[in-house]
Each structure stands twice: as structure tokens, then as C-alpha cells.
């Protein structure tokens, strides 16, 4: 007969200690974070997709919601199992919470002989319950761009440094997922305040929880929790093993950056361009794409405003230089996007720009698959339009 967990207690948890929360404990976590002054957000179902949104408790989470994803396809399904996190990431990433799609940078008015600037106010501190490991990995990537470089984006950096992040490890990756290849999931070992694993077996529906920071320890200590038993740890291991086994895709990352760097003239870029609509969906759903436009406007009352708005390298205007765009062809724009993600991101920020979340595959209207494109180029390394033609015409 299986041992039973010790009855629920609120007691001081140690950093790295593993405990078990039941559903009411998860409810208390959300309430506790909100009581601490956080704007508390988590995955919610909106417009047929799982996206970040405000939550007040477990009832707001995607209860019994599952998903089916494939290149160019995303559908939610409903079950009666009551599980909260049995879905893979949807179109909305947590990027938007830290780096809003449109954000005022400053407003200015002419005062006397000069100008007076008002910089935008900081955003409220954010608590996230239910980010995936690939999504916190994406935030780590964004940190290198917006927070840890020579210039610190104060709005992003303040919101990020003040955030509380409770990650839920991934149990049900989609067919489009390849986080195992990128080393960003399905489990997580660091970079969180709390890490949860949802388990629903003979011993009940529960969460195995680890505290990864002092803030996490503090919050967890006041929640009714149980001591984790070996059975709980083994159950977590099974969840992660099963998740890794059902990973739908893989990306061969070894040598990938240099492979793409030496294949800028590969005929595959023209082939992708035949399919690519340059619609920018991939860059909008990507949790690491950071390109933005800086836009100034003036009001009739004389107030000036500068905004920062997401932009995309698929947009013709993106590479505009006096006289016109540098990257006019769809092939050059797709090449820019993919080689940036997987190759030149390393040069610029010493990391991959891809975390393997698979969103660009699911949300591409024509189902272009970054893993397939990379594999194709790897299999025909060194091809050029010239030698592709000569091969085709060879007897």
C-alpha cells in the first residue's frame, strides 16, 4: 500500500526543497500573489486559444482544455479530466507582458525655450502562474537583448526584475514542439521562483513544487503544502519522460549556426519564398523576436509622443534605407529571420534565438516548418542556385 502524504501544513520551506500542493493550494498561491500586490496572470482560454490573461484562481485556468497542433493548425479540445496544464503553448507568449506590442516611451511639450519630457511610468509588478519552461527560456533570451546589454531598457528590465514566475513543467508537448532539442524543456532546473509539475494519478490530482528563489520560498511557506514523497518525485520523472518521448519535432543544433552562415546562397531560400507569405505571423508569435519600430507623432495641442511598436523583419519597411528596402525579396527576408534565430543570434547575444516552442510552425498560415527547413539545408550543405541547376540538368 502506498504511503500517504503528511497532512497539509504551512511551514518554512527550504530553497530547492520539494513539496506537494493540492488544487486548493494552487488557488491560495494565486490569491497570495495578488494579495502581495502583483498583477497576477496565467494561461486562460480566449478566442479559442490558450493565452496569457488575468487570473484570480484555479477556475480561470484552462480546466480540461487540450490542444491539437500541426503546421498551420491549432485547435483546442475539451476533456472532462479537470487537468489544468495539459496543453502546449498557444499564440500569445509572455514576451508581450514585459515588452508590450505598443508602448509609449515618452511624451513631450514645448516649455518656454526648450522641451519638457515625461517618460512612461513603470508597469505594475507581474506574477505569472503557469509559464512553460520554454517561455522562461525565451525571457532569458530577451534579457540579453533588452536588459543585460550595454543599454538597459528600463521598462522591460524593471518589470522583469520585479516579476514572480511560477513555471509549470510541460507534460503534453504538441507535434510542433522541439524544446528537447533546444535544451529548454520539458522540465526546468533553474531560473524560476516556483516550478510546478502537474500530476494526476491514483494518489490524486496534485502539483510537485520546488522553490527556486527566496521569493518563491517565502510564498510557498505560507501555503498549505505537504511533504513530497519518493512516489511524487518518481511521478514527476514519469511526466517529464513521457513529455520528452512525445516531442513532435527535433532540430539538429550541432553545427547549425555555421551551417546556415555558410549557406546564404542556398537554393532552399528561394524555395521557401515560394511558400512564405511574408505575413509576419511567425515573428508575432515568436517569444524572442524583439524587433521594434520607433514612431514619433504629434498632437494638435502640440504634445509629442514617441512609441515603440513591435515590427517584423518580414515587413519591407524593416530594412528601409534611403532609396528603398535592402531586403526586397521574400527569400532574403525569410533567410534573415531564420539565420538570425539559429545563427547570427549567437554572434550578437551568445545564445540561440530559438527555444523550440514551435509557435512559428503552428501559426504559419502555410505551415512552413523551421526544423524541416534547417534539416533540408543540412542535408544539402553547400548547394547553390548554380550547382542546383547543373545537378538537375545532369544526365
Amino acid at each position: 500500500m502506498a504511503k500517504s502524504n503528511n497532512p497539509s501544513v504551512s511551514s518554512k520551506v527550504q530553497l530547492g526543497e520539494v513539496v506537494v500542493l493540492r488544487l486548493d493550494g494552487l488557488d491560495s498561491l494565486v490569491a497570495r500573489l495578488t494579495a502581495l500586490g502583483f498583477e497576477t496572470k496565467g494561461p486562460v482560454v480566449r478566442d479559442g486559444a490558450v493565452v496569457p490573461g488575468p487570473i484570480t484562481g484555479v477556475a480561470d485556468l484552462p480546466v480540461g482544455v487540450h490542444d491539437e497542433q500541426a503546421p498551420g493548425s491549432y485547435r483546442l479540445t475539451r476533456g472532462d479530466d479537470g487537468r489544468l496544464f495539459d496543453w502546449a503553448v498557444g499564440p500569445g507568449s509572455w514576451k508581450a507582458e514585459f515588452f508590450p506590442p505598443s508602448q509609449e516611451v515618452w511624451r513631450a511639450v514645448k516649455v518656454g525655450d526648450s522641451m519638457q519630457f515625461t517618460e512612461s511610468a513603470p508597469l505594475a509588478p507581474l506574477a505569472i502562474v503557469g509559464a512553460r519552461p520554454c517561455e522562461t527560456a525565451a525571457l532569458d533570451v530577451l534579457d540579453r537583448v533588452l536588459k543585460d546589454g550595454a543599454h538597459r531598457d528600463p521598462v522591460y528590465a524593471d518589470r522583469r526584475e520585479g516579476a514572480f514566475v511560477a513555471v509549470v513543467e510541460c507534460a503534453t508537448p504538441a507535434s510542433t514542439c522541439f524544446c528537447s532539442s533546444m535544451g529548454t524543456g520539458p522540465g526546468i532546473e533553474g531560473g524560476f521562483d516556483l516550478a510546478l509539475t502537474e500530476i494526476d494519478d491514483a494518489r490524486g490530482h496534485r502539483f510537485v513544487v520546488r522553490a527556486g528563489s527566496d521569493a518563491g520560498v517565502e510564498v510557498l511557506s505560507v501555503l498549505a503544502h505537504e511533504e513530497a514523497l519518493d512516489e511524487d518525485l518518481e511521478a514527476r520523472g514519469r511526466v517529464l519522460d513521457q513529455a520528452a518521448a512525445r516531442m513532435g519535432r527535433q532540430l539538429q543544433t550541432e553545427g547549425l549556426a555555421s551551417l546556415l552562415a555558410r549557406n546564404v546562397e542556398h537554393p532552399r531560400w528561394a524555395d521557401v519564398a515560394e511558400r512564405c507569405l511574408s505575413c509576419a505571423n511567425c515573428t508575432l508569435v515568436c517569444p524572442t523576436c524583439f524587433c521594434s519600430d520607433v514612431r514619433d507623432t504629434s498632437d494638435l495641442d502640440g504634445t509629442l509622443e514617441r512609441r515603440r511598436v513591435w515590427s517584423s523583419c518580414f515587413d519591407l519597411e524593416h530594412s528601409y534605407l534611403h532609396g528603398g528596402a535592402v531586403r526586397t525579396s521574400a527569400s532574403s527576408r525569410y533567410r534573415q529571420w531564420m539565420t538570425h534565430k539559429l545563427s547570427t543570434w549567437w554572434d550578437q547575444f551568445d545564445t540561440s534565438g530559438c527555444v523550440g516552442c514551435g509557435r512559428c510552425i503552428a501559426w504559419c498560415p502555410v505551415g512552413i516548418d523551421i526544423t524541416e527547413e534547417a534539416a533540408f539545408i543540412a542535408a544539402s550543405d553547400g548547394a547553390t542556385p548554380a550547382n542546383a541547376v547543373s545537378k538537375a540538368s545532369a544526365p
Partner: protein
Amino acid sequence: MTPVVHRVVGRIQETDDVTTLCLEPVTGARMDFRPGQFNMLSAFGVGEAAISLSSAPGDRGPLRHTVRDVGAVTRALCQRDVGDLIGVRGPFGSDWQVPQRTVGTAVKDVRDTVVIAGGIGLAPLRGAVHELVAASHGGGGRVFLLVGAREPSQLVFNDDMEAWARDGARVLVSVDRASPQWHGRVGLVTALLSDAGFDPANCRALLCGPEIMMRFTARALVDMGVAPEAILVSLERNMQCGLGWCGHCQLGPFLLCRDGPVVPYAGIVSQLLTERER
């Protein structure tokens, strides 16, 4: 992202569509910078554009930016009058690494410097030439300035070029199309290289102009025996933030606002210049 407000204290109409703006901060001290760096200039209410500094750090007087009217923002900047306000953020980016004028110290770098500019490409080089000519009188190497322009009316900084020549620099100018009044050379700037008289084995070259001009000039320099490592080029892409955040100024591995605009020609840059739509 918040600019420092500057006032236009002077403007020079260089050509039909090129204007030099002389700027002083409304409050506070003039910024320090190195030749080759750029600022983000705001035409308030219209937008911002990346414009290189065309003055020299050692000069007294206002900051200079030389702007060509090629779009909405640069047009608005060119139309600013004395007394108008302009926002300045910067300085950003890498520089030409020319010796700085320091009183009483000998300049250690005695190599020849070949400065090669196409059209308004002379603007980000102007400060460097000033410094180099001054350094050449303090033990620094010889200065060679080779300038190409589409036609004589497109030449900028004619007075400076005369002054640099008087100060010992060898200045050669060529235009693609001569006007009736033009008695100088006609042809591509690369045609000036063999007549300039610098020592290819002991020189450095600073290049700024259209990419195709830099590509062919750099190649010609290498063919003459100049080491690729001794060639610097100034590259340009759409720059919207100057801070490495906006992603627009990518060129292969570079974010040009951060890693450029001045980069060594040797290695990846020589390759990038031959690739289309990068």
C-alpha cells in the same frame, strides 16, 4: 530614448540637398565623441534618424551633423533653421580609431592613412581627417584623401579639402560626370588609388560611401598590397534606436548601431559586401 534638446546655432547649405547643422545643447555641456560615431537626431513630431557627427572632437564650437535630404525625417532636419530645436541622442557606435589630438605628446602611429570617401560618405570622415592632419604635424603619418562624387555639384566640404591640402594632406578628387566648369579628374574613385602615392605596405585605409564603392575600393586596395586588416569601412542599415534593441540595423552577425558603423573589412565584412540583400 529621451533626447537631449539642442538648438540649431548655424546651418551650412553644402549642396542642393545636403545641409550641415551646427548644434549646441540648450543646457549642459557639449557631448564627447570620437570621429565615426553617430547620433540619433529628432525632428520633433516627425521622427528620428541616425546621422553621423561631421565635426572633430578637438574642435571648439558646436557639434556638426551633415544631413542629406532623402526622406521625411531628413527633410525636416534639413529644413530646421537657426534657433530651432533638435533632439540628440548619442553618441553611438564604433569609430575610426584615429589618434586623438593631445598637446605635447608625440603621435606613435606613423603609418600613412588613406581616407576614401564617396559623396556624403565624407561626412563621418571629416572629423577623422581633421584629427589626422593635425596629428601629421606632430609626428603622425601622411594623410591621403581620395574623394569621389557623382558630379561636381555633389561635392561637400570643398573649403575643408582646400585647407587640408594646404596643411599637407594629399587631396585627390574625381567625379563621375564632369560639368562644363570642371577641370579636375573624371572617373571612379578607385582610379585615384595608383596616383595617390601612399605606401600600401605601411598604411591604413578608412572607407565610407555607397556599399558598391567600398566593395570595389577595398578590393583594389588589397590588390595593391594593403592588408585587409588595415582597412576600415563604415556600414549603414536602418537604425531606429541606437541602443541595440530595435533589430533594424542587422547586417549578418552585426547590430551596426552597436558593433558598427565602423568595422574592419577583413573577414566576414568582405564576404557580406558581396552578398545580395543582407
